[in-house]
């Protein structure tokens, strides 16, 4: 970036004086104000670093835990084409988790440390993945609504002030849009299928609609990190703004799917140029966030078990690498 030198940490001199820090801070603020990217070796406020680690880690954890509700249907996918699409999607999610852990590592943490925080409950993942996938149509509802909400949230992150995160989001958003279209197409096939299939699709949308709206986080007046994140240009829009945008996008899509959204208060408001919608059950939201959702226990237990049961495999790989360091090159030469 253009002014990188101005606020790059001086690794030789370690300018830790109050004046020096103030100078770095001014350069950081100027870079953010000018919509420049902050890069890993640039100076940044500790709170900026901590916020990003928290957000990127939570995002990475969501990709990893988010594999579970969908993987739940891989073995039962009703056609080989759908099975291939679903497997590819779950594979992409693992890949997204890997990109995001790498982005977080540029901030001075490690994947192991972050996984440890996930397993011990010190870091969170998106509360949406604490809902169960009860029928095949849920796979479509997740693609359409959950991925749709994620994209609405994440597209602005492609312009986030932290370079590695912004670049990871560009790649991730491309793949997510693809998944979202596939989910929509899955629901459309069900909606236009037999009566039972249509009912299955409607039931899934009924169950996933409100949890999807909750993905945008608490209302603006209760969102503790929002103001600071917007100032730092980590976030570009408020929770309520994005939620409104999502509702406006979904209403016509639901119509063309031939499905209804489970909200009697949902209607077009000519004056605002937006859809009005009913009240979200914030008690449920906070409950799920606190660990009391339908699948919180199950999701984290499966993750912990996979990690614990894989320990001997990771130990074997490490032991093998230690024994054979330097050997591979010699053998191949």
């Amino acid at each position, binding site marked *: 970036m253009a002014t990188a030198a101005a606020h790059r940490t001086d690794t030789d001199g370690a300018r830790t004086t109050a004046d020096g820090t103030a100078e770095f801070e001014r350069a950081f603020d100027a870079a953010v104000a000018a919509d420049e990217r902050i890069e890993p070796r640039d100076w940044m406020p500790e709170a900026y670093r901590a916020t990003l680690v928290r957000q990127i880690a939570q995002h990475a954890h969501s990709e*990893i835990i988010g*594999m*579970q509700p969908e*993987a739940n249907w*891989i*073995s*039962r*996918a*009703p*056609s*080989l*084409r*759908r*099975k*291939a699409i679903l*497997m*590819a999607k*779950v*594979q992409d999610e*693992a*890949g997204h*988790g*890997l990109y995001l*852990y790498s982005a977080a590592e540029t901030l001075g943490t490690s*994947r192991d440390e972050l996984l440890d925080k996930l397993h011990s409950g010190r870091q969170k993942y998106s509360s949406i993945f604490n809902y169960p996938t009860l029928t*095949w149509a849920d796979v479509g509802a997740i693609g359409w609504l959950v991925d749709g909400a994620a994209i609405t949230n994440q597209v602005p992150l492609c312009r986030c002030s932290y370079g590695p995160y912004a670049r990871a989001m560009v790649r991730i958003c491309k793949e997510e849009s693809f998944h979202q279209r596939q989910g929509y197409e*899955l629901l459309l*096939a*069900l909606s236009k*299928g*037999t009566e*039972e*299939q249509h009912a299955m699709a409607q039931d899934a949308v009924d169950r996933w609609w409100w949890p999807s709206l909750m993905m945008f986080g608490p209302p603006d007046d209760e969102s503790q990190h929002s103001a600071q994140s917007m100032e730092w240009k980590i976030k570009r829009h408020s929770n309520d703004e994005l939620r409104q945008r999502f509702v406006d996008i979904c209403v016509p899509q639901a119509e063309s799917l031939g499905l209804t959204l489970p909200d009697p208060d949902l209607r077009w408001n000519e004056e605002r140029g937006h859809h009005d919608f009913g009240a979200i059950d914030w008690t449920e939201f906070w409950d799920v966030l606190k660990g009391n959702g339908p699948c919180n226990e199950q999701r984290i237990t*499966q993750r912990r*078990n*996979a*990690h614990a*049961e*894989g*320990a*001997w*495999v*990771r*130990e*074997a*790989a*490490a*032991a*093998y*690498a230690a*024994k*054979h360091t330097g050997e591979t090159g010699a053998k191949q030469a």
Partner: protein
Amino acid sequence: MTATVTTTAALALGDDALVLSHRLGEWAGHAPVLEEEVALANIALDLLGQARVLLSTAGDEDELAYLREERSFRNLQLVEQPNGDFAHTIARQLYFSTYQQLLYTELAATDGPFAPLAAKAVKEVAYHRDHAELWTLRLGDGTETSRERMQRACEALWRFTGEMFQPVDGLDADWAGMEAQWLRSMTDVLGRATLTVPEGPRTGAWAAGAGRQGLHTESFGRMLAEMQHLHRSHPGASW
């Protein structure tokens, strides 16, 4: 006659790929490390792609996958074996991908009906084999625990490996030659992994190694029940 022979062969190869793909898909969300979530799903997808081409050669892919019963499946018993621990999955993968690479290399060189598929698949299969070999080395020559587990897995699956070299009608290959090469390859890889080549029989009493005739092991019926349940619950529906 030719069509029937081709169909038999397509089902044998297609069922192998379909069933192993299903087993690998069961790992999703359970792998020991994130990179293996990606790798195992990748291999499962390659195999599912092969299965779809092969089953479509024999008929309608979904009818064949979802509406046949256990006794009509023609896959090797090896590929239907439950995942077990990671070592069992890797041993199954090592045995099968080495065989598949030998077979597809031969089929790709013929002018038979499977040559185009084999030519494409052989590249995927080389990757699968590489992945399995590398893990065999890491587990075999890793820790004491991993060596024991890998040895146990190799022993447990050994008795299903003879079936791979029973000639299949419609596949033009040197079965005895492939078997000799496969054994040499196993001796080499297991040796480098500090493991012992199992000594037990490679086919067994009447049920061991009869998958090609539609005789399967007990876990297979349960696997199919899960795989086929939704499709069978909605006869005639499209998805």
